[in-house]
């Protein structure tokens, strides 16, 4: 029987999505529903002298108005849940509504609950706030200097933590190295922009004491826990439902004040309350990504051997520490400084810095894109300095295939890899030598062609729970599945993760159907409801297939083992004498003696004739905790032509060779690569959240923030190599973030390569025509 594993079957999610029959959080409508709106600070940094809600309370349709003072003793602060150790982390309280001070434009000040959305919004205009403005500071490096405006009383110089990573002896390496270079690299702040804005709809039933909260969530069990902390309701009286979720990219991981506010209001008023942000509110309130100022040094030999890397990074955290924020620029960033290379000496220091801006947390790639970018950028600069081909420098430093598992200087161990294989394949696809020849010819004609090559690996499939605990993550990182077989032989799998576009309702059904020899239509996958699904940790960090998919596999194997016991009993045979063939257990040598999976499902569920000591029913639960992270890798290559007159970048070809181990559904894998690469190209070419010096977000709507459009983006050519991971039973690695991680340096390196004849060495992202043009003029010694 052909396996479904490896088959690019169509997604079962799609019929409801293409017909408008899916239910997203804002689609939830309940009897007696009230609507909430939240008054947001218009100042980046100010003392709150007075918040007068009297007029708003009198407005037509308004049911209740709450201020920070009203809620101070009723709702707990928004917790930070990644307590990174050994870095003197300081997490000041983040009240659900500001009490005496606001710390970013968008900080919540008052909650209005009304009979309609419009009435709630209208009432916001009737609230009078008396601010005493304070100085803002938006740049993390500047915020960490003496004399900068102070956000929190107990955080001197706004430095939330100072985290270090060391391996080998970087200072010695730099002292001895014949070649040294340094570069200041900016990782601009980005707006995740999941197309569905966030929403929460809370319904408290005073009769049962149960709160049900629909949340746009990537991780409903984490949200249940965080909601319990904030609302003070015990966890077993909270049900979180993440229905259809319209993208997340990290922005729907954190716990926010908003879901606690509607939950409190529902508790207080005894009616359901819904809040939905619009895009402008989303840009002010929902977490941002990146925001690093990096000082990077690299040293090596004259013939291309990298001997050391040093960094000093200022990572902006925004006004408060969001749920996972401290772990992103540290554990998920600094530990990946070696990339796919054997770099013996590494020393990095990361300062987490509060600024008067929207909180920063995990955004697609979360720490690894920043690490990959700085490393890949430095390697190209190094190659240019020593006059060596950048591909040859990479090849010289890649971890050899026969060295896995390989422990890098930062202390983590990569599971498996074939970095040269992916590099060779990508070079072959682009015909590297031919392109270099074309480039040389074009240069003679005054045209600027360039090529960028990125060899990357990344850490994902988060991860062993023991490691999570050791690095201060406030939860486990296993995941879970219940595989339940119905009397008629059809199956439901209830999973702890929460896909929101990645297609695991399909791929996990493929895993289960293969195990039982069933048509894939006979398997349903259920996610997102804490009432139905076992404790899990959600969908992020490219972990769902590697960790939760493995739980599905193990649970299905357990079910099958029980079915085999029952089959042996019914066939009066030893289990050892049974073969599994075409969806049946068959007695060896007696092909007519068999029990199909469907027959066994019925017999297990009616339990008329069970083996002695075996319980009725046919279902199993598995909690899968991997022994290590997984480390997908690959090579991306981009060729560009730059118009030196206008600074415009035209992408000629984009090639992505990725290795995520065996692919359950190649169609879905390719879709992940496409989306990831384009998101990275957006970062490289056009996206940047801009604050003015007063802390006003100038890119506050989709008119100003440049999410890539279809007409701006190229076609991606994809290919793969297959190197299984030894750390899970499927051999799979994550592929949700690789595109974003690899594509940013690939594009920037291609542009810098194109402009090498003009003396351009580095351009800060995003590479808008204006920035590229300016870099050209600066290199020529012309305009500023």
């Amino acid at each position, binding site marked *: 029987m052909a396996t479904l594993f490896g088959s690019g079957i*169509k*997604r079962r*999610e*799609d*019929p*409801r*999505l*293409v*017909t*408008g*029959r*899916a*239910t*997203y959080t*804002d*689609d939830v*409508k309940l009897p007696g529903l009230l609507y909430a709106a939240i008054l947001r600070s218009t100042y980046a940094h100010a003392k709150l002298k007075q918040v007068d809600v009297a007029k708003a309370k009198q407005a037509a349709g308004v049911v209740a108005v709450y201020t920070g003072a009203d809620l101070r003793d009723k709702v707990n602060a928004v917790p930070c849940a990644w307590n990174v150790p050994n870095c003197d982390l300081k997490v000041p309280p983040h009240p659900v509504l500001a009490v005496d001070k606001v710390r970013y434009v968008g900080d919540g000040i008052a909650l209005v609950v009304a009979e309609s*959305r*419009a009435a709630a919004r209208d009432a916001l205009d009737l609230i009078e706030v008396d601010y005493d403005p304070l100085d803002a500071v938006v740049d993390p490096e500047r915020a960490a200097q003496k004399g900068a405006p102070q956000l929190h009383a107990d955080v001197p110089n706004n430095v939330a933590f100072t985290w270090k990573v060391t391996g080998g002896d970087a200072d010695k390496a730099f002292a001895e190295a014949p070649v040294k270079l340094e570069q200041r690299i900016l990782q601009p702040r980005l707006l995740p*922009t*999941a*197309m*569905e*804005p966030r929403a929460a709809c809370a319904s408290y039933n005073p009769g049962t004491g149960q709160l049900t909260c629909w949340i746009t969530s990537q991780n409903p069990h984490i949200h249940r826990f965080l909601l319990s902390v904030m609302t003070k309701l015990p966890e077993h009286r909270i049900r979180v439902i993440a229905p*259809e*979720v*319209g*993208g997340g*990219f990290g922005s729907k991981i954190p716990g926010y004040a908003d879901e606690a506010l509607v939950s409190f209001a529902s508790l207080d008023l005894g009616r359901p309350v819904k809040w939905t942000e*619009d*895009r*402008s509110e989303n840009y002010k309130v929902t977490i941002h990504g990146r925001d690093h100022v990096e000082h990077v040094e690299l040293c090596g030999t004259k013939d291309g051997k990298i001997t050391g890397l040093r960094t000093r990074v200022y990572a902006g955290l925004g006004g408060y520490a969001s749920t996972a924020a401290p772990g992103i620029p540290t554990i998920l960033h600094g530990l990946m400084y070696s990339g796919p290379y054997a770099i013996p000496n590494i020393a990095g220091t990361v300062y987490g810095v509060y600024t008067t801006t929207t909180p920063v947390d995990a955004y697609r790639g979360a720490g690894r894109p920043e690490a990959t970018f700085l490393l890949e950028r430095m390697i190209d600069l190094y190659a240019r300095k020593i006059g060596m081909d950048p591909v040859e420098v990479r090849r010289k430093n890649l971890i050899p295939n026969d060295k896995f598992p390989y422990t890098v200087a930062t202390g983590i161990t990569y599971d498996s890899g074939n970095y040269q294989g992916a590099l060779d394949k990508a070079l072959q696809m682009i015909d590297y030598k031919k392109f270099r020849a074309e480039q040389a010819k074009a240069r003679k004609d005054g045209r600027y062609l360039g090529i960028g090559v990125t060899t990357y690996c990344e850490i994902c499939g988060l991860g062993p729970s023991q490691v999570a605990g050791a690095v201060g993550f406030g939860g486990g990182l296993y995941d879970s599945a219940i595989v339940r077989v119905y009397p008629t032989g059809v199956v439901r799998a209830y999973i702890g993760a929460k896909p*929101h*576009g*990645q*297609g695991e309702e399909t791929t996990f059904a493929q895993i289960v159907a293969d195990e039982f020899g069933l048509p894939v239509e006979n398997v349903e996958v259920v996610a997102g409801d804490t009432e139905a699904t076992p404790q899990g940790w959600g969908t992020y960090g490219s972990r769902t297939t590697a960790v939760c998919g493995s739980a599905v596999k193990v649970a299905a194997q357990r079910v099958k083992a029980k079915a085999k016991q029952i089959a042996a009993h019914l066939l009066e045979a030893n289990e050892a004498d049974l073969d599994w063939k075409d969806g049946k257990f068959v007695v060896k040598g007696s092909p007519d003696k068999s029990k199909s999976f469907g027959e066994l499902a019925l017999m297990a569920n009616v339990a008329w004739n069970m083996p002695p000591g075996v319980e009725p029913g046919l279902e199993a639960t598995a909690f899968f905790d991997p022994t290590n992270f997984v480390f997908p890798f690959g090579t991306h290559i981009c060729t560009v032509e730059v118009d030196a007159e206008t600074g415009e970048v035209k992408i000629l070809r984009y090639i992505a060779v990725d290795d995520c181990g065996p692919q359950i559904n190649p*169609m*879905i894998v*390719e*879709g992940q690569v*496409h*989306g*990831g*690469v*384009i*998101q990275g190209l957006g970062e490289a070419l056009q996206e940047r959240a801009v604050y003015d010096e007063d802390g006003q977000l100038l890119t506050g*709507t*989709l*008119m100003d923030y440049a*999410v*890539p*459009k*279809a*007409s701006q*983006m190229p*076609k*991606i050519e994809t290919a793969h190599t297959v190197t299984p991971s030894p750390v899970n039973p499927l051999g799979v690695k994550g592929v949700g973030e690789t595109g974003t991680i690899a594509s940013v340096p690939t594009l920037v390196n291609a542009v810098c390569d194109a402009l090498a004849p003009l003396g351009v060495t580095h351009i800060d992202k995003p590479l808008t025509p204006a920035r590229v043009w300016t870099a050209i003029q600066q290199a020529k010694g012309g305009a500023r």
Partner: protein
Amino acid sequence: MKRSITLDVNGATRTTEVEPRALLASVLRDQLDLTGTHIGCDTSQCGACTVLLDGRAVKSCTVLAVQAEGKQITTIEGLSGDGRLHPLQQAFWEKHGLQCGFCTPGMILTAVDLLSQNPTPSEAEIRHALEGNLCRCTGYQNIVAAIQSAAGALR
């Protein structure tokens, strides 16, 4: 001051009370329970709320509900009938032209308009026609492929 309006939506006549300032997108969603029309921005950039007005794609967040009286409105829920998918819905499914699905209704309805105006669009024409529809998941490549495929099926 609310007023009563009668809308022709997906072939049915629907009467509802609206404020004159109410946007068609909000009325479709909140009052007529047609939640397949999504709202992804507040500045008419994202296109998630696209519907057909007399067969042409419009962003229903830029239309007042009162302006839609007397016009035929088609939302994603009304695009297909008899349990069969419209060729564009089918093509988005087959070509993996969606991931989270939030932008999809608007993408499909924009494409319906495009193909009614230009049955044989080039890739560049398709990408240009999607200028007003944002997708954050797919990178657009499979959306383009889906529209090309549907164009073939519709010919």
